[in-house]
């Protein structure tokens, strides 16, 4: 069986049209990134907490949202999980909390309790002082909150009322006629987010069986480092490729390949941004795989060009490249097709955890195949044209 016999598509002739397509895709992605203020990074890089819970019976996402907000994580993102299996979509949820602030949470809780127990005093938070927790000693830390008001009601009654509001107060002392210092237990909003939420959930849904399928907590410092490492990984692998291709081929081949790779990565990241998908550690791995795959494709074409360069001296540079692309077309299409098949299986059957990863690979394989034909090789032509026109001029 054969898809292609000898083909004579004019790939290099249509490179300007391809150039427009590439620019449109890249610009659309960059615009989306600019509008969203950079890529949507996951907690791997931003720090934060992720919890995946499975209920034995369906629950409403609104109820879940209420519990999460009550626990003080108003900024949390809640998603149904496992969309691939519609019948189960109200069972499993993903709760993501980014950048939790202890002081914000403590003050909002205290203010709320103060307003509820003694309204009309004009309560204001002056300062929140944290005593950080120490995991090594079970010392859970504490918060000293200074509150100001137009006037202060009887402090002991106030303290009791606040306790009735469910805010655990260690002590309340009147500092001046308008100032009160509250000492509150450490909420551990950052470190204990997962545990707090799980406890709240079991209290709110006492009749449900709740299975905690996954929790992830990443400190902001680690996230920052992972970000740097991801950049380093991308830059170093590009550099390694540059050196290898310069050695095996020529420098201009290396430049063509690298530009094609950057083209692929930028378009994939742009598409992720347009679809508002998160960039996690796994996606970085997918991006690097795309780099490897697209390169694979490019090298096969380059190899053909190198071979033909020796054989077809009389052809023009552009024609020779076009012949090379045509000669390797059959292989390019078949390999891309088989790889795409398995990636599609991964995408639709591999489960939710791997879904976005497979999606990135799918985009990358399509864009990577396109770029080895329409980006990497045309750069060689342009390079050669510039070079010869300069020679002619000089």
């Amino acid at each position: 069986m054969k898809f292609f016999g000898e083909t004579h598509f004019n790939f290099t002739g249509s490179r300007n049209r391809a150039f427009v397509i590439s620019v449109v895709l890249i610009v659309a992605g960059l615009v989306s990134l600019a509008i969203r203020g950079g890529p949507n990074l996951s907690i791997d890089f931003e720090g934060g907490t992720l919890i995946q819970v499975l209920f034995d019976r369906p629950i409403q996402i609104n109820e879940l949202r209420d519990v999460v907000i009550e626990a003080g994580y108003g900024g949390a993102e809640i998603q149904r999980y496992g969309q691939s299996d519609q019948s189960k979509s109200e069972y499993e949820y993903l709760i993501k909390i980014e950048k939790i602030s202890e002081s914000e949470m403590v003050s909002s809780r205290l203010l709320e309790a103060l307003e509820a127990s003694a309204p009309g005093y004009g309560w204001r938070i002056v300062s929140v002082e944290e005593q950080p927790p120490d995991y090594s000693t079970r010392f859970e830390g504490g918060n000293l909150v200074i509150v100001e008001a137009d006037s202060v009601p009887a402090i002991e009654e106030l303290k009791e009322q606040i306790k009735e509001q469910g805010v655990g107060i260690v002590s309340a002392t009147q500092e001046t006629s308008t100032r009160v210092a509250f000492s509150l237990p450490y909420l551990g909003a950052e470190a204990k987010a997962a545990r707090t939420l799980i406890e709240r959930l079991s209290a709110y849904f006492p009749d449900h069986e709740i299975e905690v399928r996954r929790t992830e907590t990443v400190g902001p410092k680690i996230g920052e480092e992972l970000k740097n490492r991801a950049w380093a990984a991308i830059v170093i692998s590009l550099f390694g490729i540059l050196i290898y291709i310069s050695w095996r081929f020529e420098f201009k081949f290396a430049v063509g390949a690298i530009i094609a790779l950057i083209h692929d990565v930028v378009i994939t990241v742009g598409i992720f941004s347009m679809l508002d998908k998160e960039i996690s550690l796994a996606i970085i791995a997918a991006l690097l795989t795309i780099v490897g795959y697209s390169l694979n494709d490019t090298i096969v074409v380059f190899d053909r060009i190198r071979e033909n360069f020796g054989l077809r001296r009389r052809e023009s540079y552009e024609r020779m490249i076009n012949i090379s692309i045509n000669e390797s077309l059959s292989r390019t299409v078949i390999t891309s097709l088989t790889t795409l098949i398995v990636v599609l299986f991964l995408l639709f059957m591999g489960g939710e955890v791997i879904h976005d990863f497979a999606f990135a690979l799918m985009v990358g394989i399509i864009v990577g195949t396109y770029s080895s034909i329409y980006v990497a090789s045309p750069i060689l032509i342009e390079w050669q044209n510039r070079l010869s026109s300069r020679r002619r001029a000089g």
Partner: protein
Amino acid sequence: MTRALRIKIIIVLVVLLGSLYFLYPTFRLVTMGREERTALEIDDPEEIDKLMGKAIKLGLDLSGGMHLVLEVDDSQLKDDEKRDVLDRALQIIRNRVDQFGVSEPTIQKEGAKRILVQLPGLQDAERAKRLIGQTAMLQWHLVRQQEEVVGILNKLDRVLKRAHGDSLIEITPSVADTAVGFVPEVPVAEETVDVLEETIPAAEETIPPAEETPPVPTPFDSSMVPESLLMQQTPDVPIDIPLQTMNKDKPFTSLLMSFYRDWLIVHEDNIPRVRRMLADPEVIEAIPEDSEFMWFDDWTPLPEGGRGKFLFLIAKDVTVSGANLVNAVPEADPQAPNRLLVRFRFNRKGAREFSRFTGENVGRFTAIVLDGRIRSFPVIRSKIPDGSGVIEGDFPDTEARDLAITLRAGALPAPMLIREERTVGPSLGADSIRMGIRAALFGLIIVIIFMIIYYQLSGGIASIALIFNLVILFGLLAYLGAALTLPGIAGIILTIGMAIDANVLIFERIREELRKAKTIRSAIDAGYDRAFTTILDANLTTLITAVVLWQFGTGPIKGFATTLSIGIIASMFTALVFSRVIFDLWTRSGRVKKLHI
């Protein structure tokens, strides 16, 4: 048969048999029925361990379990102590995890300050965190006696009055009506002396510590909090609030309740005030350098109502430390059988020190300090020569057991902070494996069908090469002891797609050569030769990115990079050597008239 071909056949057979050999334990475990496995676990647990050790390991995301990254906080250490602090911490954490009983844990250094701990199958995350993260520094400090303490208290009053006299705010003792101010009492004559094992019962009764009161869910509406108010917080700016007291002449002591034996009692409401005074720079200056104030861990109910905490003035010097402990076990408290205490035993050196310490200080109180908090404060009745004693505390069952483990394993040289924590439930891992394997199988089948339709018999050879490729991949995984992760499965699936590429390159070349009307043999030779450099260049560049990924990735990413790298190498071998051998054997006779390609 040529010599070269014979050598190639031998290489192929060796690789095939080697891979199968390394795969056997995995195969055996996977195909073993549940009953057979239980039977074997009883009959020959060693055999199971041996199989598990040699089988392909599953990463945490597939097996379920816990992943922790701890960072050592060496800010309090001297420079020479900082050098090997991570190695010592690693050793101690390893000891603790070993005694905790987790099978196949991973405990390794990550960078200069971090330790990675992976505990497969573990579910009680909180308990594990406590067990691993607890410093477990056990120290005995001598409690300063009343006469000394009184002198210092008076000094503190004077210092505070001098420094803050004008700004001190006098409060009426509204809550703590019970806080009658400090009245130095005549020391209570010690009626019965306590042995070390029978420490002063310290508030084990009714009152749960405030920190443990679970916050009751309250209706919360964030819109009720005006944004402008939240913006006013300035947590970084130190607040300058006047100190409060009940009596301007005795700023410090008027906040204390009474003297009981060698310690002070502070009412709950006054604790924050006392804490702030103790943090005052003038006060810190005034406390003798060899002493420090320390609170007792638990609350104590007060006869006057309410509750309070004991405050001790202790000697800063560590008289005896837990470094020489040889054993620690939880046991029931003889006085209250439903409570647990932890009994410890010193080695000879520790016992000697302990014996001297107890001998010299008969009648004195000593504070047993664990991680900077007083856990109990027994009085020394007599010299204890055998180096054994107990630590009391209101331990839940597991906590007493875990404390015993941490004491046995030794103290961490510095506190460890948890920087990253991931847990995966076992069911999620099982789902991932099932789905991953299903996707891989379907992908494999479709690719094989496609190859056979497109390249006929040659496609069949490529398919056998592909399966051989997977056998090598899994065999190497088992041999290297590398863990299979979910991204690792993705890497394998990708390998299936890409491994075909090398064969496609060769086949397309052979087809081309055949079009040039070459003979079958020379077309095959030319096809392989021409495709070789392409395959090499294309795969090596992919290998570069895979190696970089392996170098920079953590956990799951490493798993992906591992399977991808192995897959690339295996695919080069199967395409260039294995399928070549088959072609050579097939066309060797020269009788093949038509190549099905």
